[in-house]
């Protein structure tokens, strides 16, 4: 390939490290381009995974992130959401295996970013639903808010994530158990609310069902002891539904 396209291809290859074939890359100044592009990617990942940074430290994070950038360079110019594959990268990154909760913390950081940029919608107020009678409630079709993201971990990743985002050490009282949360956006602020696993199932059922009654039956199939009224209240309180 010659001309401009050929130049672009050679330049891009040289940015990736193959600098021998491309004469301009032999100039010391070529490093400026390589450094600028990498720094922009690392800055974006650091901004998008603050809890992970808190857990592993900035130096470890940027070293790991640099490998990820090389493997999965950005394809979308919106670097404010770069890192869609970073948690998956950590799954297969051997040094991360020393911190078994790190991948789930990264997933929660990612859901936070997704919620932040999701479409706007008014949050359904709990009082609107509370005023309905039993029949009307059962027939109700609820719309899950576009900024809602469910999160489930087989580890206490929600507690670890919360402490990390606050820049604090995890409390001594941490119980090593499954944790779930629902990520919502209320008044343009992203919230992570711990919920029971049954609440996530209920939320999923609501998204799939034509009525609240159907969603409740489907949830009870899986969690026979679930208190549907309490699950609904917790989801409404978290701002999980749109008007």
């Amino acid at each position, binding site marked *: 390939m010659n001309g401009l396209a050929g130049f672009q291809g050679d*330049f891009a290859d040289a940015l990736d490290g193959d600098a021998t074939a491309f*004469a301009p890359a032999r100039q010391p*100044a070529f490093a400026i381009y390589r450094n600028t592009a990498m720094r922009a990617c690392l800055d974006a990942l650091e901004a998008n995974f603050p809890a992970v940074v808190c857990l592993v430290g900035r130096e470890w994070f940027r070293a790991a992130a640099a490998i990820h950038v090389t493997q999965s360079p950005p394809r979308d*110019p919106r670097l404010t959401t770069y890192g869609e594959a970073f948690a998956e990268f950590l799954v297969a990154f051997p040094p991360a295996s020393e911190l078994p909760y790190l991948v789930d913390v990264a997933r929660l950081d990612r859901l936070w970013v997704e919620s*932040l940029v999701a479409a*706007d919608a008014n949050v359904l107020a709990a009082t609107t639903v509370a005023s309905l009678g039993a029949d009307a409630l059962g027939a109700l079709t609820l719309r899950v808010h576009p900024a809602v993201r469910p999160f489930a971990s087989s580890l206490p990743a929600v507690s670890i994530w919360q402490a990390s985002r606050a820049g604090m050490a995890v409390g001594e009282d941490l119980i090593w158990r499954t944790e779930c949360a629902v990520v919502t956006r209320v008044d343009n602020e992203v919230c992570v609310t711990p919920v029971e696993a049954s609440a996530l199932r209920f939320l999923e059922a609501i998204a799939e069902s034509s009525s609240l009654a159907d969603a409740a039956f489907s949830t009870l199939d899986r969690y026979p002891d679930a208190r549907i009224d309490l699950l609904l209240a917790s989801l409404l309180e978290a701002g999980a539904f749109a008007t």
Partner: protein
Amino acid sequence: MSMPPAAGVGFKPQHFDAAMRSTSDALWLEVHPENYMAEGGPQLAMLDALARRFPLSLHGVSLSLAAAALPDAAQLQRLRRLIDRVEPVLVSEHMAWSSWAGRYVPDLLPFPRTHEALAHLVRNVVHTQDRLGRRISLENPSHYLVLEGHEWSETDFLGELVRRSGCGLLLDVNNVYVSTHNLGEDPLVYLDDFPLHAVTEIHLAGHAVDDTGATLLIDSHDAPVADAVWSLYHHLLSRGCVRPTLIERDGDVPSFATLLAERERAHTLLLSEGMAA
């Protein structure tokens, strides 16, 4: 919509409250649209609030107009939506490329100024202006590399781009200083050859010395505007190039008040030149 020659600042989210309280005369703000291309959420709400209060300039970094390929259709559509939403007074991009084979390189990359490159650039700018429904301005780049194969001087290349595409130019004075220093050229000669009639906006920013020990200057936007750049700005104003002027700062960002003080310096110069003209 044209804008009277006033000075503005590059907006940073941490300055939102201070900016909204600002009483500076004729202040305008510039943002990178890529940071606000969300479906919804707080960033977009912030931009809406700024747009209600200030004239805005959208200064894109990602359309990759100097590439052999057309700019990404989805990205153009997002930019169009943002333009329709906040109705900016200025829209600009860079004379550079950043996309290759579906991959985005977050930098402004150079190219040999050939006849072929000019044809691609003209086509991409015309296409962009068509999709956005408005004229855009292109910024002169910072140079670090000595490239072979140029068939045009940069100023002639920009002049021909303007003639063929109808676009405007964003004259970044710091880039002129950095590039001419790095390539061993004379910034005053560059400015005297620049198609000033097409300039819609001027950028002023700080630069850094490359830490590898070379004599290269880097367009780092992490320091106050250098004295040498202010001198070039005076030169431009004295030649009648009195245009909206932006103080750009992207790294080591100081308080809004400190940025405004730099902005006042440019604004005062603009006002006195505007009255003298």
